[in-house]
């Protein structure tokens, strides 16, 4: 257990250091905790590092995911319908941490379930479970006192989303208080929507690098190994969410239940994406 509670910032920093050593970008994979049900979700989660995920983003299900497209909305609905809630999400992480001491886990979602859990208690429990960082979509820097500052004080990373609307004037405010890495949402839109062009990404990376030395992960709209490779040539990591979650949806039976293909279909896709990312700079 002592391993599980090494500071979250450490595990993320170590992972990016290792990627740098290997001379490649990382693959960040997103799944929603409890999708399609808690047991199947644990099977999927467990299998991700082996399939090539360098960092895992685990969605905290929420009834009103305002910044998500249909794929992740449905994942949230499936998880909630299967009885998922925050305490179970944290046990999922704990179960994973018992098996894997190195792969960083970032919880991603919306503020209300954390607020209702209680910020101090949540941070304590998340840290003890082996969570490394948080991405909370509806907490811009204007609301840093709510969660960002206490998170960083607790030794976990608070990872900020930067977007095409983050100009040079706003970026300093965005990278302040943040740690771990910076997530660049490459298109203005909901998750799963269209992707940015290579030129747009190059331009955005230039802008971001002027304001931070943190690693930069780029996501939104990455569906194929080719797209992941394109991003991996520019950024420190490529994030894939909706495509993986859609694969889960595709694997379910007519009643929406997990099948014996569910985990393998997901790992199959992750393997392809990882290949793309790993060979991008060769």
């Amino acid at each position, binding site marked *: 257990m002592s391993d599980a509670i090494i500071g979250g910032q450490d595990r993320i920093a170590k992972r990016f250091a290792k990627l740098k050593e290997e001379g490649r970008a990382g693959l960040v994979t997103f799944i929603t905790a409890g999708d399609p049900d808690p047991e199947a979700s644990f099977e999927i989660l467990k299998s991700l590092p082996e399939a090539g995920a360098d960092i895992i983003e685990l969605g905290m299900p929420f009834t009103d995911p305002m910044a998500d497209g249909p794929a992740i*909305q449905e994942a949230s609905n499936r998880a909630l319908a299967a009885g998922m809630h925050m305490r179970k999400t944290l046990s999922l992480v704990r179960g994973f941490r018992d098996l894997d001491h190195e792969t960083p886990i970032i919880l991603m979602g919306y503020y209300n379930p954390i607020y209702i859990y209680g910020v101090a208690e949540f941070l304590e429990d998340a840290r003890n479970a082996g969570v490394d960082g948080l991405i909370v979509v509806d907490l811009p820097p*204007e609301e840093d006192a709510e969660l960002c500052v206490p998170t960083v004080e607790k030794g976990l990373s608070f990872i900020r989303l*930067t*977007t095409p*609307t983050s100009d040079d004037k*706003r970026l300093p405010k965005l990278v302040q208080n943040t740690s771990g890495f910076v997530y660049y949402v490459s298109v*203005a839109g909901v998750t799963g929507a269209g992707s940015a062009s290579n030129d747009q990404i190059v331009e955005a990376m230039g802008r971001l690098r002027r304001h931070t030395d943190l690693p930069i992960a780029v996501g939104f709209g990455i569906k194929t190994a080719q797209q992941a490779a394109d991003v991996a040539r520019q950024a420190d990591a490529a994030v894939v969410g909706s495509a993986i979650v859609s694969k889960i949806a595709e694997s379910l039976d007519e009643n929406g239940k997990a099948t014996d293909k569910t985990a393998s279909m997901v790992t199959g896709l992750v393997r392809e994406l990882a290949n793309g990312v790993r060979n991008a700079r060769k």
Partner: protein
Amino acid sequence: MTSSSPTLNSYRALPDPDGHFGNFGGRFVAETLMPLILELEQAYKDAKSDPAFKKEMDYYLRHYVGRANPLYFAERLTEELGGAKIYFKREDLNHTGAHKINNCIGQILLAKRMGKTRIIAETGAGQHGVATATVCARFGLPCTVYMGSKDIERQSPNVFRMRLLGAEVKPVVSGSRSLKDAMNEALRDWVTNVEDTFYIIGTAAGPHPYPELVRDFQSVIGNEAKEQILEAEGRLPDQVIAAVGGGSNAIGLFHPFLDDKGVEVVGVEAAGHGVHTGKHAASLSAGKPGVLHGNRTYLLMDDDGQIKEADSISAGLDYPGIGPEHSWLKDIGRARYEPITDTEALDAFKLCSELEGIIPALECSHAIAQIVKEAPKMGKDKIILMCLSGRGDKDIFTVAEALGVKL
């Protein structure tokens, strides 16, 4: 949290610069939207201090909306209840039949000033959707209205009106398929169309500066009513009362009276099948503070912070949250909020129609129902001033169904 007590001994000084009403309000939005709401805040500040903006606003409110609308003494209802004198502020007589247009005029003029070329909105009852579609037609801007598919079924006349006005009505099938989900979908549209789109929020909720600007645009209700009651009675009312969905007609009536100590402030929430049944929309009576749609406010939710579906016969009140200023007014005790069930509202709807020859919207029928409870207990020398927020034509199908009448 720097402003939990009002400054300047006034209840009218908030929000603070960060959009807080005490512990409520704020800006809980995705980063993509932050520059947009900051831009809006600045544009609104500029507009407020520009006499030309006020002049334009006044022009449209007078010549297009038909303001000032009357403050009407509901004589027969007063007689029937045998207590306090009851006055209705007649927002039902506005163009499009509800108070919603006051706010839409303000926001579309802002949108024009900001050079935005496309308008989006959410709607529950369809009144805000109709008002938005109306101003979009008038000012020549394309309009997309998000509406829960459940509401599309129960408010079909308004859906047709919006389409006649040239708006695109997009059904929302996610979640509970009503107002909260329409708002989610409008926010999703907005993050996708950040360059050209202005989001006209229909109630005094959402991220700062919306609760403030919607309140300011709706305050024309209370400002007029105050002048009118002084003229009619030579004094202020003992109570102001309004139905609260998101809370825009209510805050518009209340705000000008908040510093008048002798005026009691009462908001009426939709209790659906009854607060004890769990099937209701009474977020202030039965909810707790949480964060949704850009602000901290009272919400209906479970122990895990998952938002619950609201339930009300009135589509315009069928929302699991409430504007943040109402949460603050409740907590500091300046206003009280009372729940009224579907059945009570229906009875009041009939009573008002039969006694006053005014078919009220189901939303404000909730306020009438509360008056039915309270007026008889008040002396005949007391005065109640209610916001009759809209007319009930849109609700006749819902009411017919509830009464078992086939149209």
